[in-house]
């Protein structure tokens, strides 16, 4: 990395954090510390909601995913705009009118303390673990590609976030997230422009899209009704709707963002702004990945993008095989280039169709060599991470972007990691203080005491997340478990909230029993079927509502008898 990149990276991060801390200094009462003092405008709310959801993995993995699978991941977000409309109408007015600090506080007013603390506990469990992953995932990729020490990278991301979240609370989180989100959007737009500029002079955006389209990278919509297919139009619309409803409507890391608005109206517009911009933003990130793919149709890509693992494999007995595969890869790529030129020169429909078929076959041959290289590395280094799609974008950035741009894109990745972790830590601390500490341990203390308690809990959750991130590599299965943990619980939690909003007669015991049974159904589905995780949210929510209604009827009629 050049000096200019270092200046861009360190200067921008210091400016954002410094500004956030300066703007929010002296937040000594609970309302200001946990809810930002209800001062935020709809623009701040909208950007901070987006920034909380966009983790570094969004910017590192999604371009790589588009490189390999095309744009189809976009379907995951199709339910989101509809969910923001429902939350704007149903959830936000109720939270504001109940004057809550956390979403779970609302449940005690409608049901009882155990329902509130059960859902708050589920939130702490899943969000506490995922905060560690939010630090771990980008750190492992950035440290590997840049050659930085892994633990130092974790500390750099984690420590800065912990400090400004402790100092400024929820307002510091929202204020820094606003700046961070603007930089993330500008950085990815700049990356798109620079990648197009780096294509050969005669390749326009239109031609680049023709190449991407011919190779299936623009196939965003999948109309399949197979429930095992992870991303389809239907799972995106229905499963994504329930997931977004649960995430934005009941997850404290998001609820805390819009509870900081200066009015219900500002809060609702902020969330709708997110519903309007989310899909275009994700499409831009996926399109950046598609353009990187097109770039590598004109320039020889590495046979394996994770250079650290490739180097490790080359130090084993597999070195001659890998060198042979690299030569073979260069050979198939040269033939692919010829097929590509023929496809681009084709003038009539027949030539174009023949050119497309030749190009597709050539790309398949190159992919076969890449797959063989992956298998060789897996055999040579058994503990190697052989999923190299997460490394595609950063490797491309380091090898092909000009000085200054590298620093800017690292800022994007660091901002994304920090904004997501800050939102999580602030929400974890507020839930711990409001739903457990103040409710069950110290109910009568002063505001200043609860602010100090929130600061201590922010530090503790931050330290736990850092420890988890540092040692996560030792617990590979745990990481996979954490990644699916959210979808296992979200449906059930959403069902409890919907019953709280829309029913008047159902009692707390009936709802708790229904929630436990619904959770058992979802876990059984996870263990026994291959159904896409997006459907868990639908099943969990429906099961809670149906079982609670059924139990209520059974107990009521038994009581009458």
């Amino acid at each position, binding site marked *: 990395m050049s000096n200019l990149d270092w200046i861009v990276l360190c200067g921008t991060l210091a400016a954002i954090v410094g500004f956030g801390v300066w703007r929010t200094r002296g937040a000594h009462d609970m309302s200001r510390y946990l809810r930002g003092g209800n001062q935020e405008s709809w623009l701040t709310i909208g950007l901070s909601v987006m920034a909380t959801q966009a983790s570094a993995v969004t910017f590192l993995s999604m371009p790589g995913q588009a490189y390999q699978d095309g744009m189809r991941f976009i379907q995951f977000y199709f339910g989101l705009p509809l969910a923001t409309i429902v939350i704007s109408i149903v959830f936000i007015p109720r939270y504001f*009118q109940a*004057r809550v600090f956390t979403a779970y506080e609302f449940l005690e007013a409608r049901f009882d303390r155990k329902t509130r603390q059960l859902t708050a506990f589920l939130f702490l469990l899943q969000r506490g673990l995922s905060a560690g992953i939010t630090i771990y995932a980008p750190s492992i990729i950035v440290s590997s590609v840049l050659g930085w020490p892994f633990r130092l990278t974790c500390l750099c991301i984690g420590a800065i976030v912990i400090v400004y979240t402790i100092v400024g609370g929820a307002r510091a989180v929202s204020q820094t997230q606003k700046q961070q989100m603007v930089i993330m959007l500008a950085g990815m737009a700049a990356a798109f422009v620079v990648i197009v500029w780096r294509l050969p002079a005669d390749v326009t955006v239109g031609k680049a899209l023709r190449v991407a389209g011919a190779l299936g990278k*623009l196939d965003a919509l999948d109309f399949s009704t197979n429930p095992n297919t992870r991303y389809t139009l239907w799972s995106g619309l229905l499963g994504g709707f329930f997931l977004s409803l649960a995430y934005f409507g009941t997850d404290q890391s998001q609820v805390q963002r819009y509870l900081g608005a200066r009015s219900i*109206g500002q809060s609702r517009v902020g969330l709708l702004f997110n519903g309007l911009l989310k899909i275009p933003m994700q499409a831009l990130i996926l399109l950046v990945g598609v353009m990187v793919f097109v770039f590598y149709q004109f320039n020889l890509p590495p046979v394996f993008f994770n250079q650290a693992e490739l180097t490790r494999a080359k130090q084993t007995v597999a070195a001659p095989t890998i060198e042979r595969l690299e030569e073979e890869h260069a050979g198939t790529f040269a033939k692919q280039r010829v097929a590509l030129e023929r496809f681009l020169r084709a003038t009539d429909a027949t030539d174009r169709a023949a050119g497309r078929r030749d190009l597709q076959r050539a790309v398949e041959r190159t992919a076969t060599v890449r797959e063989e290289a992956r298998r060789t590395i897996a055999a040579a280094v058994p503990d190697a991470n052989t999923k190299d799609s997460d490394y595609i974008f950063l490797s491309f950035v380091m090898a092909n972007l000009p000085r200054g741009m590298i620093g800017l894109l690292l800022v994007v990745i660091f901002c994304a990691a920090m904004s997501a972790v800050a939102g999580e830590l602030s929400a974890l601390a507020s839930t711990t203080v409001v739903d457990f500490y103040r409710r069950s341990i110290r109910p009568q203390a002063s505001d200043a005491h609860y602010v100090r308690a929130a600061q201590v809990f922010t530090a503790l959750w931050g330290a736990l997340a850092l420890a988890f991130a540092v040692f996560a590599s030792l617990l590979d299965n745990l990481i996979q478990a954490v990644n699916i943990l959210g979808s296992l619980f979200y449906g059930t939690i959403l069902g409890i909230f919907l019953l709280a909003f829309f029913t008047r007669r159902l009692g707390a015991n009936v709802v708790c029993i229904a929630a436990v049974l619904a959770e058992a159904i979802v876990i059984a589905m996870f263990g026994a079927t291959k159904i896409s995780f997006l459907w868990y949210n639908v099943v969990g929510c429906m099961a809670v509502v149906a079982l609670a209604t059924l139990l209520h009827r059974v107990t009521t009629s038994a009581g009458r008898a």
Partner: protein
Amino acid sequence: MRDSTLENTLDDQPPFLTWRALHIIVALSLVIEIAAFAALRWIYR
């Protein structure tokens, strides 16, 4: 629990347009986006 300054701002009015118009715009944007992805695939197939 909420501070008194917020009591005066529980107006529930959007800063522009009406709630119904805002909700229709967001829902329509989804329809337009799905149509745009279908068009992108069709144009560059």
